[in-house]
């Protein structure tokens, strides 16, 4: 009772003129920071597209062969490198991440192992990507003898993306209503059958969203691939054990060491605009697919 009366008198005191003014100021400040954030995003996107969109949209640039000494080169091997790398990485990180997520949310009983795995994942996600790059170079490129290659890069990016894939998958799995688990178990499903038939299908839209978003992160990652995959190639890399050059690494290479190519600025900004478009499309895709799948399952939006 006493607590209640204290609260009451406080709220009365706050409800004066000062509170109204503070409320208005706070609203304006919050609105201003939101607008600033939006303006910055739009500004960056506009600047990149302004510089490079003209180049990026021409087929002879996207599908063209890169030039090392002359101007007029294209970026096709870099485009292939980026997507090759994304596919390789996903095929490693998805099973690992989803498996770990399922273990954490459906199978693990003891709190200690769960806490340990979470702590490990959180620590991993706090490490800067350049550190992963150096680690990948030392362990995969040199020690395991993979050399600069898509495989070394995919292994490095697997480590880099594991925490986020795991987290998003775990969130998707945890958001599956318990009533489905109960229904499946009461039908005589074993735990694994329940997970396979009742939990995973329902969690799939969420897991897919996470996967598409990580394709965006893989394609856009530069520091980790600069040290593990390569900066510039002239031919399309068909073997995962050959050097390649993802777009992000190639952009960095062009800006810093690309001076041998007279039109390095055109190539770099064209490539940057193209990469940006891809990431934007991937993000849009991630937003819409989950909704579409859920609609097909019969959930009312």
């Amino acid at each position: 009772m006493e607590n209640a009366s204290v609260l009451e008198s406080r709220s009365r005191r706050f409800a004066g003129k000062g509170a109204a003014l503070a409320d208005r100021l706070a609203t304006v400040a919050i609105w201003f920071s939101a607008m600033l954030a939006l303006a910055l995003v739009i500004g960056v996107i506009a600047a990149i597209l302004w510089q490079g969109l003209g180049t990026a949209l021409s087929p002879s640039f996207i599908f063209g062969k890169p030039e090392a000494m002359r101007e007029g080169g294209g970026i096709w091997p870099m485009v292939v490198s980026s997507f090759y790398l994304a596919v390789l990485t996903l095929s490693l990180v998805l099973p690992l991440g989803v498996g770990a997520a399922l273990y954490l949310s459906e199978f693990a009983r003891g709190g200690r192992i769960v806490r340990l795995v979470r702590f490990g994942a959180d620590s991993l996600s706090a490490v800067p990507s350049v550190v992963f790059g150096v680690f990948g170079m030392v362990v995969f490129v040199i020690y395991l003898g993979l050399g600069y290659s898509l495989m070394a890069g995919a292994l490095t990016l697997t480590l880099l993306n594991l925490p986020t894939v795991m987290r998003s998958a775990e969130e998707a799995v945890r958001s599956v209503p318990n009533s489905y688990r109960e229904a499946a178990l009461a039908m005589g499903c074993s735990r694994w059958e329940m997970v396979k038939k009742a939990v995973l299908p329902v969690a799939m839209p969420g897991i897919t969203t996470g996967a598409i978003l990580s394709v965006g992160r893989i394609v856009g990652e530069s520091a980790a691939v600069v040290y593990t995959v390569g900066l510039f190639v002239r031919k399309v890399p068909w073997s995962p054990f050959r050097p390649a050059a993802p777009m992000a690494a190639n952009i960095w290479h062009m800006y810093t060491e690309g001076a041998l190519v007279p039109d390095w600025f055109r190539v770099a900004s064209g490539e940057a605009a193209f990469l940006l478009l891809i990431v934007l499309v991937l993000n849009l895709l991630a937003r819409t697919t989950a909704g579409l799948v859920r609609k097909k399952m019969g959930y009312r939006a």
Partner: protein
Amino acid sequence: MVSTFTGRGGPGGGQGVGERENAVMEQELEVGAEPAVPGIRVEGGYKFRLRNLSLYYGERKILEDIELDIPENRITAVIGPSGCGKSSFLRCLNRMNDLVEGSRVEGGVFLDGEDIYRRDCDVTALRRRVGMVFQKPNPFPKTIYENVAFGPRILGVRDRATLDEVVETSLRRAALWDEVKDKLKEPALALSGGQQQRLCIARVLAVEPEVILFDEPCSALDPIATQRIEDLLVELKEKYTIVIVTHNMQQAARASDYTAFFLIERQGDPGRLVEFGETGNLFTNPRDERTERDITGRFG
């Protein structure tokens, strides 16, 4: 007849492991032995027999010393005020309580004379024999067809024609076929609440259970949908033993053959079985004054 069985769901209570400490009872209890409640005649037999059943969630005792026989091919209603452990009781019959962390069972639950809490009991097989329909309709977010085919598919049925047949028979038995036969490929979640609940019943029927447990199946439904489910129960008892938990006394009086009345005396006490009998007798002529007080209080 004192003996203790402990059903325990693994360390921290997963599913699967039932641990027996003492195995005297199984031999002592044979089909045809005296019923737990004297003075009741049942044609046919008993499907479930419960002896000294107590249920704990951690340190807390939820149910104490339940002695009850559940007649075969009849509808047995379980009634009582909220919090008296009716739903927990129901979940003892298909071991869904194993999922509750720290749950523990003492005493014996015998299905056709076999203790379902014995160590080597196959819980998945048990749950196929004892199906369950939940309070809130919980069809999977799949098509109507796939919901009913779910159980048979788990059992390994692949053949399309067999599946089609099982789906149709189950939907017919659940009195849903005519409403959905033209839209089997549509999502189950697009159905109304009452239809969803009948779909859940069809889903259970598709694995050919012997017993169906209903946990307040109508509490989320309107009166017309409720009526349809009640009619359905009466049809189903021809083939199945039915146990239904309900908070609705009228429903118990209308739809059931036998009624078990559970009560919790004071806050924090475990739920106990106060009275079990033929529904007509229990409602019109209760033997226990607590039953009388509670039932008349609710009807009035």
